């Protein structure tokens, strides 16, 4: 009788232990592991590396000279995402995107590139631009026309003193699932994150003709 009782209690102990262990294994295998959600954006030079951002390594860009970059974005959000890369033209006094308040730059937009990205997918494309026309107003230079990826663009007025310290700002915008609208940066859980890049350049002033 005592032998039977001990056999049953032993069986119950084995059953409960295996039930606990198997439940834990099942829970771990069924529940997806939480991972950090983020995007990566980058600009590469004409060699598709982080070098040679300017023709001849000279940041003074003459009129009509083509500058070739590669823009890229990688989705590490764990799900399909709609991404827009906004390319803006700014001078040194215009405020860049605000990382603290998550606000985009108010600089005028040159062009935007849209794409639906799978999880872990990288999207890379060329950005070929040149300065088509400028206007000189006293000490200031205004880029009045640019050619971006074979499209002529007339940017809003961005004056720069002696044509120095222009910059191209690249911002990433995504579709926010909560508000169902495009937002600067992305939402990871309850947190808002932003990412942006900028590359500085000068415009070479044409010599005055007499």
């Amino acid at each position: 009788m005592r032998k039977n009782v001990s056999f049953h209690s032993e069986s119950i102990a084995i059953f409960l232990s295996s039930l606990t262990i198997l439940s834990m294994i099942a829970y771990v295998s069924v529940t997806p592991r939480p991972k950090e959600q983020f995007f990566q954006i980058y600009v590469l030079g004409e060699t598709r590396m982080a070098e040679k951002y300017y023709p001849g390594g000279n940041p003074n860009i003459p009129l009509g000279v083509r500058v070739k970059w590669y823009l890229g974005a990688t989705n590490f959000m764990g799900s399909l995402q709609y991404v827009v890369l906004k390319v803006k033209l700014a001078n040194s006094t215009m405020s860049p995107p605000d990382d603290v308040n998550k606000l985009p730059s108010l600089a005028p937009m040159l062009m935007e590139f849209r794409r639906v990205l799978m999880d872990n997918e990288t999207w890379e494309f060329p950005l070929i631009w040149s300065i088509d026309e400028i206007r000189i107003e006293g000490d200031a230079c205004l880029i009045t026309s640019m050619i971006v990826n074979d499209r002529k663009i007339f940017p809003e007025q961005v004056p720069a003193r002696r044509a120095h310290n222009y910059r191209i700002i690249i911002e990433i915008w995504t579709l926010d699932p909560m508000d169902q609208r495009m937002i600067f940066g992305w939402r990871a859980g309850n947190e808002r994150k932003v990412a942006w890049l900028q590359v500085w350049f000068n415009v070479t002033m044409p010599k005055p003709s007499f």
Partner: protein
Amino acid sequence: MTLLAIGFAIFVAANCISASSQESSTNVGAKFFSAVLLAREAQIEGAQRETMQELAARLNVAVQLLEKADEAKNEGRLGSAQTLLSSAEELLEDILRAARAEKAAAVERASQLRTLTIVLVPVLSAIITVVTGYVLRYVRRRSVERLFKMLIVVKREDEKER
């Protein structure tokens, strides 16, 4: 006077086309956002990767159509813009249907997996209990048998010595 009336009619018609194009563009934009979010939900529910790749590719075609429609509208080709918007809308409706079906299938698969896990865990535990019980009993019986055999050998040796 007649010329003026014709001019006014053309102006009104152009405005109507432009307004209707703008309205349908907004509708298509909203539909595009819904399609992206639905596809995203399907992926979160565990939709298959191949299906998601197909959905993403079709969504990118819709993006291109919308961009071309925008371009046509900016160039004043309202008819062409309207045609492109209609194609995009049609495609987006297809994507919405596919994403909805995929999400439902993914939810169904996840629920089946949950049920299977809930059933399998106690069944496996029971099997482990039975097998372990048999193994333990076998091991114990073997050790008792070995002990008896040893005792018998000792007894025989004792008898021989006597």
